């Protein structure tokens, strides 16, 4: 599954949020979207899972404009785990939450069939959520919840995964486990990650957004240059690949003084 975003423009309440955004994820790629708060990451994701219609530009999933597809057709290709994902699912148990992933596979009269059962079971196993199957969703820990929501997305049998801050509020082991899980699915993924170390660990490519524009895109170390870390994130830092193969970022002792912050990023 290939994702392409072409020359996207989004304006909300007369504020430009995204300007001329173009990016691509090739089949099987894990692409990380990084940038400071308010840089337009979540807005960009919304255009991909067909919640926000761009004023200009196109989002294509496997060559088709997502807005030319029906909501259901689009959701059979793309699954998302979002920050509102907790919702208020009181009274739904874990299996029922995961089964929500089957929603786009049914019309009004559709009943659960063998396919649905199989997809749900497989997703539960894949995410190690089997022991939680009968628990009430609200009784789960943060890490367990995220794993269940990922299972819901996998039960959708998507060919593209969209993840918004999947690892927020999780302890370090839970974070690593989730990242491994995502890697193991082999599904093309577009993920917003605040933590640059995690982004570097998970992703094949990064796209850096700053004030609604793409300021860098490419392999992890090509994007996380000292200049970009300074100009976009306002920190002195260097990123390098350690002998064990993991990219680590070493931050300076202090953030940049405010008067040194560049007014506009140089791309």
């Amino acid at each position, binding site marked *: 599954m290939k994702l392409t975003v072409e020359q996207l423009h989004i304006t909300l309440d007369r504020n430009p949020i995204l300007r001329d955004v173009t990016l691509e994820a090739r089949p099987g790629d894990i692409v990380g979207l990084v940038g400071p708060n308010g840089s337009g990451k979540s807005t960009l994701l919304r255009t991909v*899972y*067909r919640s926000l219609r761009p004023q200009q530009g196109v989002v294509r999933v496997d060559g088709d404009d997502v807005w030319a597809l029906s909501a259901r057709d689009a959701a059979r290709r793309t699954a998302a785990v979002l920050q509102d994902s907790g919702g*208020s699912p*009181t*009274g*739904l148990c874990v299996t*029922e939450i995961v089964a929500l992933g089957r*929603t786009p596979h049914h019309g009004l009269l559709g009943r659960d069939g063998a396919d649905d059962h199989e997809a749900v079971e497989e997703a539960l196993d894949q995410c190690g959520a089997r022991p939680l199957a009968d628990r009430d969703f*609200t009784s789960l820990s943060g890490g367990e919840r995220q794993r269940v929501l990922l299972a819901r997305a996998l039960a959708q049998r998507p060919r593209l995964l969209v993840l918004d801050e999947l690892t927020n509020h999780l302890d370090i082991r839970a974070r690593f486990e989730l990242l491994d899980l995502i890697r193991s699915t082999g599904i093309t993924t577009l993920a917003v990650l605040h933590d640059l170390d995690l982004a570097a660990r998970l992703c094949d490519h990064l796209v850096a957004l700053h004030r609604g524009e793409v300021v860098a895109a490419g392999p992890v170390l090509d994007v996380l240059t000292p200049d970009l870390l300074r100009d976009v994130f306002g920190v002195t830092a260097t990123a390098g690949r350690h002998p064990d193969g993991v990219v680590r970022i070493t931050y300076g002792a202090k953030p940049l003084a405010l008067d040194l912050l560049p007014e506009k990023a140089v791309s």
Partner: protein
Amino acid sequence: MALTVVLVAVMMVAVSIGAVTIPLGDVWGIVLHHLGGGGATADPALDQIVWNFRTPRVVLAALVGAGLAVSGVVLQAVVANPLADPYVLGVSSGASLGAVLVITLTSGALGGLGVSSAAFAGAVVAVVLVFLLGRRGGRLAPTRLVLSGVAVGYLFLAATSYLQLRATPTELRTVMFWMLGSVAGAQWGQLPLVSVVVLTATVALALFGRRLNALLAGDESATALGVDVHRLRALLLVLASLLTGTVIAVAGGIGFVGLMIPHLVRLATGADHRRLLPQAALVGAIYLVVVDLLSRTVNRPNELPLGILTALFGAPFFLWLLRRNKSLDSL
């Protein structure tokens, strides 16, 4: 299935009990006879009581209870608020104003049908107003809707209260009784329309069960699950409002059923709307048939309005249930 049996049994018992108690066997015979299933014709007086007085009343109570419960389930999911009930969008305040206008301006001369029509018209006006106020960017926003419903409710209540102040004591009693709800005026003539609305709306809403479940995940997540959230929300609100408006027009403003029954059934069976909706309909029907039976037996020969009893018996039970249940703490 078990609930269906309970409902039929409760309805039979409700028909048999009254000023004259009629053995269940006779009730069964008379009902079967009228449904075309043969059976011996009983004493014409008994037949009159069973078939013309009590049966329509019991059937109406069941339909009203089912309608309120279904509407409550849907509204709680659609505006994502556990405090929501069928009246959250101002339906009852609009209906009350319509009813009170007719009762006070005509001194009740128009009778039941006039009051029903006016109540329905008032409900429609209130809901349309709330929909118009609850929109933002062409979409219905849950919080805005609920707050608009509250504001419109107070506005209509002001007018209703003013009319009540000017009413004669007799009119006032009629108004009070109407507002607290009753199915005492049930007639066969009104049942076809009410049953078509309640049954059609319930079946239609139950078809959206899977999507209602998706709404529980939040608007953005539901969108990513392929649900057109804004269109779905508008459609469900229209259906639920039509259902509530119809029920309130024939039975007045019966409170608490539409809040309590959805929570009660959700605690018992979980929140999967494909199960929840039909079960809430049955439990709502059973509950209101029982309450109506009590309303005409506990204070004989006077009748009590249903709204008093739904709360009097429902609230303590509901509170007991809330205290026992832990999953609500995370709401």
